[in-house]
């Protein structure tokens, strides 16, 4: 089935979805978001399917990450209500016009879990198994040459993917951190 992609401005999000729905793409397959902290934006995606016309359209737009607000499409695609509710809970995007944006799973205390910067408590508490390195253990067995020494190769410490350094407690910060706070502030 053919799939068209359509990138629109946030202001024409609702109008575009309404136009596509009127044009036959009335089945909302999904509506979701992608957090892009590096670009300070959140991408919102809606996948609409025109079943008789055998056509799919992926509509995408971006909203400001600091103040994500977007027009709701519930009036043109009623099935979007639940998806917008979920996107609001997980990414914090406010869909103006959606009457019910109550959270589905969380109490709201931990923020928006699917934003990449939201700390995941179990990832902070659990030691990452990938941190151990066989080369850090002293090698066993006699050295090959008299006086020969097998040096443990110092390797750069790998960080677990998706776990931001600022999540870890300050006690495990880099050495010499006592002097840095003042130095950081004065520039």
């Amino acid at each position: 089935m053919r799939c068209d992609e359509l990138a629109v401005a946030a202001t024409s999000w609702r109008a575009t979805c309404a136009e596509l729905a009127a044009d036959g793409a009335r089945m909302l397959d999904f509506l979701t978001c992608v957090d892009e902290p590096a670009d300070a934006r959140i991408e919102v995606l809606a996948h609409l399917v025109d079943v008789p016309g055998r056509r799919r359209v992926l509509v995408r737009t971006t909203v400001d990450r600091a103040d994500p607000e977007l027009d709701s499409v519930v009036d043109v695609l009623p099935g979007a209500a639940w998806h917008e509710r979920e996107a609001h809970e997980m990414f914090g995007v406010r869909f103006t016009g959606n009457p019910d944006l109550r959270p589905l799973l969380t109490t709201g205390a931990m923020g928006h879990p699917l934003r990449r910067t939201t700390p995941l408590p179990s990832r902070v508490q659990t030691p990452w198994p990938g941190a151990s390195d066989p080369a850090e253990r002293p090698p066993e067995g006699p050295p090959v040459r008299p006086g020969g020494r097998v040096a443990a190769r110092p390797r750069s410490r790998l960080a677990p993917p998706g776990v931001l350094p600022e999540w870890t407690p300050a006690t495990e910060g880099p050495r010499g951190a006592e002097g840095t706070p003042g130095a950081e502030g004065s520039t």
Partner: protein
Amino acid sequence: MAAHARIALDAAACTSCMLCVRECPTWCITLTAHQESVGDPGARRPRTVNVLDAFTIDWGLCMYCGICVEVCPFDALGWRSDPVGPASAPEGLRHGITELR
């Protein structure tokens, strides 16, 4: 082709490179290894090899995504068709080198 029921480890093929452990999205693999110097009298510098001490997959955490199987450069991890059996406690789902054969 074996069904994707569980993951098996060929301990002899594993070089303890840690790739599977670091790529696992659920952090369900733990691996401990040490280095041993290999005696090679002609060598100018001693050569070291990693020796696998322990390898554990926690089936209570594993989501059977197969990324570890994909990233293993030495095909030490592979799929098997016999599923993981039940356990009466979470510890019973942590399988070591012998259970993962």
